[in-house]
């Protein structure tokens, strides 16, 4: 049980995405267990990577390692994935994901965005992808909150600090600081002002 975290720590410290993963660890600790914030980053990393209830963190970690093009990472990654399995119902196929992405309960979560900003939060049963097969993909800004069951589809832009409501289907742009909900979704709150 000692060996797996050592391989993962080597991968983390060696990778070119080291600083990004440090921010991820800090943010996950902040969201999942704030009392642990006074512990060291490495201790929190070991806890996050070995806890079976937080397999989404492993998926995110392997995604970060796979996108860093170092030789050692390419060799050790399959071994690491074999020792500590990632969440199999979570798919991240995004060219660039900002630091501090938190994925809660990654059951049936498909993230196929063009770009995701910093400190976003994505819940279970979410699909971010194309509207028509082969179509464009969404761009998510910073601090976006995508709630349970929401579908964000098509070549659209979700603004910074936007909130996507539960079970909504977003197919149009959302401005910054807005809340969108419904099927099909419309903006129901704009910077704290109700707009119905």
């Amino acid at each position, binding site marked *: 049980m000692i060996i797996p975290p050592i391989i993962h720590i080597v991968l983390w410290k060696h990778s070119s995405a080291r600083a990004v993963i440090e921010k991820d660890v800090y943010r996950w600790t902040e969201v999942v267990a704030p009392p642990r914030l006074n512990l060291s980053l490495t201790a929190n990393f070991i806890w996050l990577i070995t806890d079976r209830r937080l397999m989404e963190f492993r998926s995110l970690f392997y995604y970060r390692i796979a996108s860093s093009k170092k030789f050692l990472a390419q060799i050790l990654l399959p071994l690491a994935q074999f020792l500590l399995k990632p969440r199999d*119902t979570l*798919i991240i196929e995004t060219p660039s994901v900002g630091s501090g992405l938190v994925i809660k309960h990654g*059951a*049936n979560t*498909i993230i196929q965005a063009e770009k995701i900003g910093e400190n976003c939060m994505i819940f279970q*049963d979410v*699909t971010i*992808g194309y509207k028509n*097969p082969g179509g464009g993909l969404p761009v998510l800004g910073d601090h976006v909150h995508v709630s349970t*069951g929401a*579908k964000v*589809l098509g070549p659209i832009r979700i603004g910074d600090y936007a909130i996507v409501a539960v*079970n*909504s*289907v977003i197919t149009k742009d959302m401005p910054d600081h807005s809340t969108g909900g419904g*099927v*099909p979704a419309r903006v129901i709150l704009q910077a704290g002002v109700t707009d119905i």
Partner: protein
Amino acid sequence: MFRTIKSLPPIILFKRAFVHPIIKADVKRWVEILKPDRFAKPVTVNFVWLLQAQPAFRNLFYYRIGQYSSLLGKTMLWLAKLLYPPMETLGFAMPKIGPGFFIEYGFVTIIGAESIGENCWVNAGVTIGYRNQSGIPVIGNNVYVGAGAKVLGPIHVGDNVIIGANAVVLRDVPANCTVAGVPARIIKRDGVRVRESLSARKAS
């Protein structure tokens, strides 16, 4: 080398299957959608690649070949399922599915239709099945079911229908329509934007 040995049981099942042409049509459609540049390769090579890369395809394959009564068939099926385990959260309940059926990812997908036509497409998070134990849907050809949609009850969905993401379809859908919303409304008919509610009477 190892992959060749590993893929022998499913290849034998595939080659000897009674429904060989249907599985062949499935393989062609999956490859056409996922990796069109692989389309020129032989069907068996693509079949092995799909088993390796797409767990949802394994479920479809095991559903297609069905049960075996002979000892050899049972052993081969057991070996195939051991080497290529199917997805747990993708279920088929007594449907008749036409050739060219595509499942994207297949997480939490339950397909319990009475029959499904040719070249249909089902996304993740879809439920097709009972509503108050009254009956199950009949689905036509070339139907696209978006992510998270629910199609419930003894209804008939026509050909070339697109069901939008997170829609809840409880009534008959005529052919060549796009439906979306909770409960589902027609938002497009024959390529023209409309806003009609679905009628309670039978469309056929």
